[in-house]
C-alpha cells in the first residue's frame, strides 16, 4: 500500500522555511508591516539591505524610508535582506528567486531595488542578492524591464568600487527626496522613455549620481579626473539633506520584528550631525550640518512609538547624545511621560566626561554591569591628533563617577593604526588599562570587569584623514601582538580585537576607485559573502581574487594621497569644503608636533 498526496502548502517558499535555521528572518508580515496592492501603486520599490534580517531591521534608515514611502498612497516599499548561507543554498537548489518579504514577489516585479550601503564589507552581498534575484550584475547589461538598481547610505560618499553595478546613487539623506524621485521615475516611465534616457533625465536632479554618465580618466594607471559625458548631469553632485527634522517624516509605527534584532528597541533621533569633528569619523562630516529635533517633538514621537510598538526600551539616538542642548530637561520629561509604563530610556553614545556619566546614572535603572566609553587612543598626544580632546584626569574622573554610581565595569574602545601612532602609543593602551584597574579595583563591590575592544583605523573619504594611508597589515598584526601578549600577562581584562585583514579590505573599498569592481565580482564568484562576519570572512579568497586580476591591495589601502591628487570621490560633495579638510589635516600634524615639543 503506497500513499501519495500533494504535500506542501502554499508552494516553495514555505517549504524552504521549514528547512532553515531561523525561518522567522524570511516571514515578513510582522506587526506594522505594510502590505500594499502592487497594481494600486504607481511605482514599486524594494528596500534591500545587504546583511542578515537581524542587522538590517536595526537600521534606522530603513525604518525612516519605509515610513516615508509607504505613507504615500501612490507608492509602495517592501523589504528584502541577504539570505543566510543555508537559505541561499536551498534557494539555488530549488530555483527560488530572491523575494520581497511583504508580498513574496521576486525583485524583478519591482520598479526600483534600493540598496542600503552602510558598510564596505557588505558589498559582496549586494552582488549576491542581485544574482539571487536574477538581475544582471552590471548596469550596462540590464534590460528595459529590469528594476533600477539604486544605492544610498554612508558608502555612497565613495561608491566608486560599486559604480558599474548601480544605475543610480542618491547622495545624502533621502527621507524627503525619495518620494519625489520615485514619482519622477513614474512620470518618465509613463512617457515610455528608455532606461538610458530615464537615467539621463534623473541625473539632472540634485543629489542624484548616475555613475555611467561619468568616465574616469587615468594617467599612468592613476586616476586624475572624472569626465562628465552627459550635459544634463551635474559636474559635482550635491548631497540631499532634510533641512528641518521636526517636519521631516519620522516613523512612529515601525515594523516590530518577531525575532530579536541587534537593536531591539524603539529609537528616537535627537539630532543629526555632530559638531565635535573627530578627524577619523566620517559620520561626523557627511551628516553635517547639525540639526536638532525640538524637545516637544522628541517626546511626542517617543510616546507614539511606544504606543504603536509596545517596546519596553527607547533609545535617544544621535552621534553624541549628551551634546543635545537640553538633555537634562529632556530626560526628566521622558521619565515623567514613560516611567509609569515601565519603559526605559537609553543613550547609545556616551562621552568620557562627568556630565555623560551623570546622565547615565539618571537613566539607568536595574543592575549596573558595565558602561561603555571610547577613548580611542591611550596617549594625550594621539588623542589631540585625532581631536578626541580629553585629558587623562578627565578619564579617571568620569570612570570614578561611574564606579561611585554603582557600575561594576567598563567597556573601553580603542583604535590602532592611527596617523602618527608609534608602538609606544599601543603600549600605552596596556598601561592605561592597568592603571585604571589598579585605581578602581578596590572601589567596586565584587570584581571589576574591564573589557577592551581594539579596532584598526580605516581612513575614510570626506574626513581630514582621507589622504592618510592605512597602517600596513604586517605592522597592524605586530601591534595587535603587543596587545595580545600584554593582556595575556594582565589578568582581569577581557580583550577583543577586529581582524586586521578585514580592516584592510575595508580601507581598500573605502578609498578605492572603479578598478575595484571586477575584483568585487571575482571575490563574489570565488564564494565571498558576509565579509563583515568573522566566521564567513576568508582573506585567502580575497588574496586569490587580487592575484587573478593582478591588482595590488597596497596600492589602494597604503597609498598616501597628496592634497593636489584627484580623489576618487572628488565629484561628490558632502557639504564640507576640501579646504577645511586640509586645514584639519594640518592641525592634526601640528598637534603632533606641538605635543612632541612639549614632551
Amino acid at each position, binding site marked *: 500500500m503506497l*500513499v501519495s498526496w500533494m*504535500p506542501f502548502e502554499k508552494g516553495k517558499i514555505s517549504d524552504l522555511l521549514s528547512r532553515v535555521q531561523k525561518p522567522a528572518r524570511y516571514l515578513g508580515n510582522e506587526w506594522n508591516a505594510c502590505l500594499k496592492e502592487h497594481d494600486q501603486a504607481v511605482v514599486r520599490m524594494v528596500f534591500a539591505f545587504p546583511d542578515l534580517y537581524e542587522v538590517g531591521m536595526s537600521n534606522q534608515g530603513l525604518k525612516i524610508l519605509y515610513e516615508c514611502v509607504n505613507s504615500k498612497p501612490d507608492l509602495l516599499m517592501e523589504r528584502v535582506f541577504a539570505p543566510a548561507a543555508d537559505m541561499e543554498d536551498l534557494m539555488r537548489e530549488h530555483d527560488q528567486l530572491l523575494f520581497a518579504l511583504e508580498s513574496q514577489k521576486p525583485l524583478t516585479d519591482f520598479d526600483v531595488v534600493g540598496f542600503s550601503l552602510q558598510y564596505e564589507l557588505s558589498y559582496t552581498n549586494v552582488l549576491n542578492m542581485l544574482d539571487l534575484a536574477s538581475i544582471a550584475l552590471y548596469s550596462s547589461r540590464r534590460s528595459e524591464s529590469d528594476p533600477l538598481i539604486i544605492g544610498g547610505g554612508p558608502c555612497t560618499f565613495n561608491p566608486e568600487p560599486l559604480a558599474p553595478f548601480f544605475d543610480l546613487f542618491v547622495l545624502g539623506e533621502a527621507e524627503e527626496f525619495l518620494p519625489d524621485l520615485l514619482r519622477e521615475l513614474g512620470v518618465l516611465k509613463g512617457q515610455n522613455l528608455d532606461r538610458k534616457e530615464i537615467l539621463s533625465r534623473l541625473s539632472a536632479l540634485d543629489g542624484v549620481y548616475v555613475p555611467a554618465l561619468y568616465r574616469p580618466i587615468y594617467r599612468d594607471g592613476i586616476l586624475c579626473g572624472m569626465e562628465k559625458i552627459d550635459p544634463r548631469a551635474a559636474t559635482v553632485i550635491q548631497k540631499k539633506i532634510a533641512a528641518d527634522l521636526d517636519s521631516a517624516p519620522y516613523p512612529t509605527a515601525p515594523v516590530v520584528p518577531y525575532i530579536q534584532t541587534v537593536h531591539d528597541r524603539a529609537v528616537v533621533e535627537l539630532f543629526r550631525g555632530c559638531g565635535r569633528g573627530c578627524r577619523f569619523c566620517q559620520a561626523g562630516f557627511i551628516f553635517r550640518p547639525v540639526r536638532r529635533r525640538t524637545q516637544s517633538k522628541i517626546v511626542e514621537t517617543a510616546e507614539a512609538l511606544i504606543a504603536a510598538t509596545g517596546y519596553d526600551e527607547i533609545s535617544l539616538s544621535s552621534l553624541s547624545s549628551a551634546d543635545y542642548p537640553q538633555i537634562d530637561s529632556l530626560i526628566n520629561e521622558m521619565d515623567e511621560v514613560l516611567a509609569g509604563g515601565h519603559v526605559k530610556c537609553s543613550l547609545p553614545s556616551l562621552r568620557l566626561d562627568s556630565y555623560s556619566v551623570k546622565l547615565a546614572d539618571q537613566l539607568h535603572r536595574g543592575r549596573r554591569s558595565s558602561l561603555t566609553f571610547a577613548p580611542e587612543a591611550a596617549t594625550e598626544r594621539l588623542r589631540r591628533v585625532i581631536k578626541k580632546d580629553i585629558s587623562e584626569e578627565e578619564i579617571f574622573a568620569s570612570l570614578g563617577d561611574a564606579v561611585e554610581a554603582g557600575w561594576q565595569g567598563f567597556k573601553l574602545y580603542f583604535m590602532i593604526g592611527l596617523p602618527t601612532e608609534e608602538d609606544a602609543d599601543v603600549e600605552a593602551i596596556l598601561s592605561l588599562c592597568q592603571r585604571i584597574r589598579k585605581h578602581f579595583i578596590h572601589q567596586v563591590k565584587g570584581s571589576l570587569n574591564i573589557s577592551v575592544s581594539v579596532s584598526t583605523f580605516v581612513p575614510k573619504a570626506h574626513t581630514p584623514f582621507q589622504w592618510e594611508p592605512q597602517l600596513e597589515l604586517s605592522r597592524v598584526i605586530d601591534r595587535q601582538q603587543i596587545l595580545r601578549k600584554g593582556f595575556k600577562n594582565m589578568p582581569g581584562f577581557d580583550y577583543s580585537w577586529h581582524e586586521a585583514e578585514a580592516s584592510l579590505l575595508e580601507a581598500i573599498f573605502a578609498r578605492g576607485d572603479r578598478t575595484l569592481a571586477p575584483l568585487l565580482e571575482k571575490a563574489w564568484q570565488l564564494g565571498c559573502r558576509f565579509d563583515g562576519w568573522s566566521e564567513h570572512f576568508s582573506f585567502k579568497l580575497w588574496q586569490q581574487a587580487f592575484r587573478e586580476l593582478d591588482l595590488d591591495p597596497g596600492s589602494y589601502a597604503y597609498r598616501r594621497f597628496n592634497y593636489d591628487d584627484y580623489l576618487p570621490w572628488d565629484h561628490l560633495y558632502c557639504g564640507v569644503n576640501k579646504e577645511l579638510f586640509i586645514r584639519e589635516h594640518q592641525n592634526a600634524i601640528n598637534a603632533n608636533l606641538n605635543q612632541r615639543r612639549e614632551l
Partner: protein
Amino acid sequence: MSRVCFIFKRKMPLAYISHLDMLRLFLRALSRSRLPLAFSQGYNPHPRLALALPLPLGVTAAEEYGEIYFSETIQPEQFINTLSPQLPSALELRGAFGVALDKPSLASLVGAAQYLATLKCEPGNEVNFELVQASLKRLMARKEIMVQRKTKKKKTYTNVRPYIIKAEIINRNDDEPLVLSLLLQAGSRGGISPFFLLEQLESDPAAEGIISCKWQLHRERILINQKGILQPLSEGM
C-alpha cells in the same frame, strides 16, 4: 492584583518563532493594549507572564495556555477584547478565565501533551504505510529507550520509554497523508520532545523511506495528570 489564564491557537507562519520570541510578542501586544500589567518586585521589575509549556520551533498548536498578572481586576472578556486586536492573525485568543492568586502556576500543572505528526512527502517519494506501522510497533515494544542528559556537572541516563504514553497511526485512508497521534509526558516531572520520538522512528533501519519526508507537528492539547487521569489543563485551575 488579578490573574488571568488564557487559551490560544498558534497557526502558520508563527510556528517559526521561538518560545522567547513568543513571550516578547505577547509582552509587546500587552503593552500596546495598555492593560494594567503587574510587575515583579526587585532590581529589574518585569511583567509576570508565563506560558504553560514552551512550543518547539516549527510546531503549530490548537490549545495553548498562558497566564498573566494585572495590577487591577481584569475581566476575561475585557482581556480578550483588548488584547485580540494587538495580536497577529496567526495567534488567536480562544478563551480566558480568572484564576485565584494562590493557585499553583500553570507550568507546574502540566503533565502531558498530545501531538499530531503529519508525514509530508514529495510526490514520487511516497512512504509505505506498513513500514511506519512496523517501526512504530518495534519502538513501542522496547522496554527501555535510554537518553543521555547532561546536567551542570555530570551526565545521567534516563529511560524515556515510560514518557511515551501512547503513539499510534490514526488514519487509514490512502488518499490522505499519514498522521501519527503522540501522547507524551511533559512538564516538571520529565518528558520527551515529539521530535525525539520521530527521530527514533526514522533511525529504525527498516524505516528508510521516512527520512526523505518531513513531519509537520501540531500540538493538540496540553493535559494535567490528576491521579493517573489525563484531563485538559483548565480542569486543574
